[in-house]
């Protein structure tokens, strides 16, 4: 059985202008949505506060729930209801945190039971203090940054044999991100916002990769950034909360997207060795087409299991599998339509 007939030659590279417009539109849309929603919607992990999951065996009157919460001084809490199997779930979110002596969490099911007359069971409690949520936010950003940097170093090392060069570049950026804020903090008492710092470092490193002509690293790096921005944007559009597992999902997407990119790049290098008179664009096209079967099958099986996870995995894993679903599609697209055109662009610039 075959999905892609041998000898198929779809002109992917020829569609790069359309792809560029599509990508640009999606990125702009993401940024626009983020601005409109005033940044990503942070869950308790990153915003701090308390999230309580309560389950009832029967549908519960929301008015009663709200009045109970009001009585307990939790009037500002938001309540989200959902149904899972035979039980009804309430997700109660508040920006408050509670110390050990307050006893509120112990009282909550009792009070809910009194007012609604239904048995309430606390399934889970997540309480994150402001210090921790701040730590988690910066940790997540650093994680994304380091992953991106290490991966680009590996690629320029592997594909262009410029290990030392790219490691040196990366080393400089790591120390910039690590030392610069400390210097600013200690000398000028200015604490820099981490997102700004990391964005600057990323743009700088892409500029350097461009100047040094590290085409593969640049292509993969931009494709990755492209995926991350669009995934985050789509979350913003769908109004999904950002929590720790979502960061895990994004890093996995980075790994996956790169997986895809590298397999095509590998083929490009192989085909370049026996190039003949073909243009670089033709080589790119040939490589994409030759690996197309594999791309479709692997993305297909991955999507298949992600869809089962999304449907059967239960509420807790819902957003996580949705993030991965989005990411796999975008990642596959970017390997073909973002990473390869950038390779072409840099090669043209270098006159190869």
């Amino acid at each position, binding site marked *: 059985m075959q999905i892609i007939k041998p000898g198929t030659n779809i002109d992917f590279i020829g569609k790069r202008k359309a792809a560029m417009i599509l990508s640009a539109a999606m990125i702009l849309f993401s940024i626009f949505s983020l601005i409109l929603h005033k940044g990503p919607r942070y869950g308790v992990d990153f915003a701090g506060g308390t999230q309580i999951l309560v389950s009832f065996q029967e549908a519960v009157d929301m008015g009663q729930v709200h009045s109970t919460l009001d009585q307990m001084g939790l009037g500002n809490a938001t309540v989200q209801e959902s149904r899972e199997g035979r039980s009804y779930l309430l997700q109660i979110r508040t920006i408050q945190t509670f110390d050990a002596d307050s006893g509120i969490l112990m009282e909550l099911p009792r009070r809910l039971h009194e007012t609604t007359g239904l048995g309430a069971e606390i399934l889970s409690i997540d309480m994150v203090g402001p210090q921790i949520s701040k730590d988690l936010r910066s940790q997540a950003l650093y994680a994304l940054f380091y992953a991106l940097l290490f991966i680009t170093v590996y690629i320029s090392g592997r594909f262009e044999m410029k290990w030392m060069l790219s490691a040196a570049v990366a080393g400089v950026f790591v120390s910039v991100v690590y030392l610069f804020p400390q210097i600013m903090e200690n000398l000028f008492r200015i604490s820099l916002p981490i997102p700004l710092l990391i964005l600057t470092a990323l743009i700088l490193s892409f500029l350097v990769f461009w100047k040094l002509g590290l085409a593969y690293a640049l292509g993969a790096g931009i494709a990755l950034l492209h995926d991350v921005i669009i995934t985050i944007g789509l979350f913003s559009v769908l109004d999904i909360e950002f929590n720790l597992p979502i960061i895990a999902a994004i890093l*996995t997407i980075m790994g996956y997207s790169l997986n895809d990119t590298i397999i095509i790049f590998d*083929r490009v290098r192989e085909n370049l060795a026996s190039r003949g008179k073909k243009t670089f664009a033709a080589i790119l096209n040939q490589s994409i087409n030759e690996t197309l079967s594999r791309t479709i099958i692997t993305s297909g099986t991955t999507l*298949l299991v992600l869809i089962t996870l999304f449907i059967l995995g239960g509420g807790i894993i819902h957003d996580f599998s949705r993030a991965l679903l989005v990411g796999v599609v975008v990642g596959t697209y970017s390997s073909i339509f973002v990473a390869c055109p950038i390779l072409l662009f840099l090669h043209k610039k270098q006159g190869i």
Partner: protein
Amino acid sequence: MKIRSWRFYAVCVALILAIIYILPTFNPGLWPNKTINLGLDLQGGMHLVLDVEVEKALESTMERRTYELRDQMRRERIRYTSVRRLPDGNIGVRLADASDADIFSAFHQKEFPDMDVRRHTVDEGLEFRFSIPIEEKNHITKMATEQALETIRNRIDEFGVNEPDIRIQGERRIIIQLPGIEEPERAKQLIGKTALLEFKIVEDSHDVQDALTGSMPPGTEILYEIRRDASGQETGRVPYLVSRRAVLTGASLTDARVQVDSQFNEPYVSISFDRQGARQFERITGENIHKRMAIVLDNNIYSAPVIQDRISGGNARITGNFTMEGARDLAIVLRAGALPAPVKIIEERTVGPTLGAESIRKGLISMLVGGGFVLLFMAVYYKGAGLVANCALVLNILFIGAALAAFGATLTLPGIAGMVLTLGMAVDANVLIFERIREELRLGRSPIAAIHAGFDRATLTILDANVTTLIAALVLFQFGSGPVKGFAVTLCLGVLSSMFTALVMVRLVFDIIYDGQNKKVAQLSI
């Protein structure tokens, strides 16, 4: 090619090891290996992060030093106009006579060499400012955190939790993991209590109401007794005017246990003091007969009985309408001792047992269904070769499970998701190889040559592609915590084991099927 190559032995060793490590998970106690460790999100339990308020430990150190300085100077007959805590936390000493400065310097070097002193001129007078050097501060911070850890460990041990995990994170945080805990609120209160026990004399010579309206006698403070009804609901607060200085503290306690009053059938906590404490207690009760003595725990008064007589023997009781549970918990915290500084819960994650069991069930179902789809697809699409890849896929899951058990890693809900994801991605290596073999066949190679070329050419690509996922997983491991770390571990293991199964195991099977026979292979089932 020889069948008994290194691949053969590698696969045998891997299989045997995997079976050895995985079996106890299905049949605990089969042999002493560990089972797969379930994360708190799967087995239910509580994860707490405490912040030790080390500033308070520094403060109380300075408070103590202020007393000591004053006492010591009086003893050495150095006259001073004031010894007081400055707003920045340091101690300011003003001498009555500036000509005593040299004597004072000598005194400082002899008695308090571990403190820094600076001379200041304030309002034309001379002031010595004492501060703790930075190393000493760090030492106090470190000691406070370590001592808090020890105290909390003792309390949890007495409370009774299976396999608690308690450790210090950073400079002043303590992470506590309590798997399968049934009364999270009670445990939280037990852990969070500072449990500073103090005995203070009640100042009955002054009216409490006067003190409440503002005329507080020097050296006193107002503390409250919280009255509760039988169900533990607060019914009211009674103010007491007590002297600020404690006559005795819980530091001289040797034991605390729950007993039941035979007359009222009410539980109380009986405490006993060490020798020195007992002597002190006897002296204090002797000196304060007919006065009331407040028993203060963390600035709340438990009871304030009238001292009837000199109490010798070093035993006392704390009453104050306890429930049996409340009395037991109080005894635990008193036995384990006070925390050197108050702690604050800055992160709490509690998962009920129902949710955990539900998560496992759903995770397993999605793994079975998703995996089933992939197996079916591979068998249809690649036929014989697909079946080989399917065996590898199943073994993949076995290897991940065995590795989790072997390394004592923790399986979390995202970890299960990671395994499911691995199922989808694990076929990638096989797909790469099979597609290559098909390509080579199309180019007109013989089946065996195509197999060799396919594996050889795909190997590098597979390595490259997986290293990047590995990098992402390692970064996740480094920066993630709890369930996310669990995800990173399974992702890492998944990548490694899928590379192993595809490059070593599947190749071995191909070698056995096609290379082992000497006859020519006419066709590949791929």
